[in-house]
């Protein structure tokens, strides 16, 4: 594990309860690929709080890549976090997909204050060779 999280509580107790942290500010990562959209809510350091995707929202196959599915995924992810008291958020969008704008729209409508909206699509400086062309 890269980040060492200090243990808390006594040794003897088996902590089966989830640690509910109150996070006022967080980061929302949207990974929008052509086939799916994943929305992950983390804290500022990057530790995941909750996540949701078009697939977990009940969509299957080609419907996962649609903007509507991205909208429901984002709404789902944020609903779980708003209860924990998150007010402000940054948005990091990755990937070229139809879910980019739709998820952003859903986040905006949910009432969370947005500070930044960033695009963090990874761009190689001519690195690995991509797979061959499809002959469809």
């Amino acid at each position, binding site marked *: 594990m890269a980040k060492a999280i200090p243990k808390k509580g006594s040794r003897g107790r088996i902590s089966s309860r989830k640690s509910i942290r109150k996070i006022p500010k967080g980061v929302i990562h949207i990974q929008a690929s052509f086939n799916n959209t994943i929305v992950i809510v983390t804290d500022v350091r990057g530790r995941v709080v909750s996540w949701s995707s078009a697939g977990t929202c009940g969509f299957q196959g080609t419907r996962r890549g649609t903007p509507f599915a991205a909208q429901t995924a984002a709404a789902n992810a944020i609903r779980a976090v708003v209860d924990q008291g998150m007010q402000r958020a940054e948005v*990091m969008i990755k*990937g*070229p997909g139809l879910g980019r*704008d739709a998820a*952003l*729209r859903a986040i*905006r*409508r949910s009432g969370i204050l*947005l*500070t*930044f*909206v*960033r*695009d*963090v*699509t990874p*761009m*190689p*400086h001519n690195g690995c*060779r*991509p*797979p*061959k*062309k*499809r002959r469809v």
Partner: protein
Amino acid sequence: MAATTSSSSPTSLLNSLSSLSLSSSPPPPTTVSLSSTSSSTKTLTAITQPPISPLIHNTSSNIHSLLYPSLAYSNNLFFKTPYNVQVIVGPDESEESLIGRFRREVFRANIIQECKRRRFFETNQEMRKRKIRDAARRRSRRRQRPVAKKDEISRKKVDDEPDNWELIDVEVPYCQ
């Protein structure tokens, strides 16, 4: 035109900056550059705050630009996470304006086009074809705009000619 983003790791850039500060004397410009949080050269930002002036222009030493030309735009370093496009959301911004602004910035940075290009491998032949197509498109775009201006000017000149060859209604003697 492929927009490349110089997202070199922050640690390597910090190292190069520290070497810069050690080699030359002035301390204040280096602190300015280290505290800057603007984006890198080839990335676009819609920052409404005034940008921090570049390191090179502030300092009187031209040694920086000679020795480290790649650091000429070192004011545009990003330190936390590398990003391609950043849009700072205002306090009362409508949903459509925010999305419109974001989409415009992304379009200007050519991100989606690049992603589609890099999805599958393109051979040298395909790369050459694509470059020819892009160059032709760019040339046609450049020629459309100034040509339109020339048309307007030529039309105006026709009206302001001093010679007027139209028939004048004047009574000429000995003519009916």
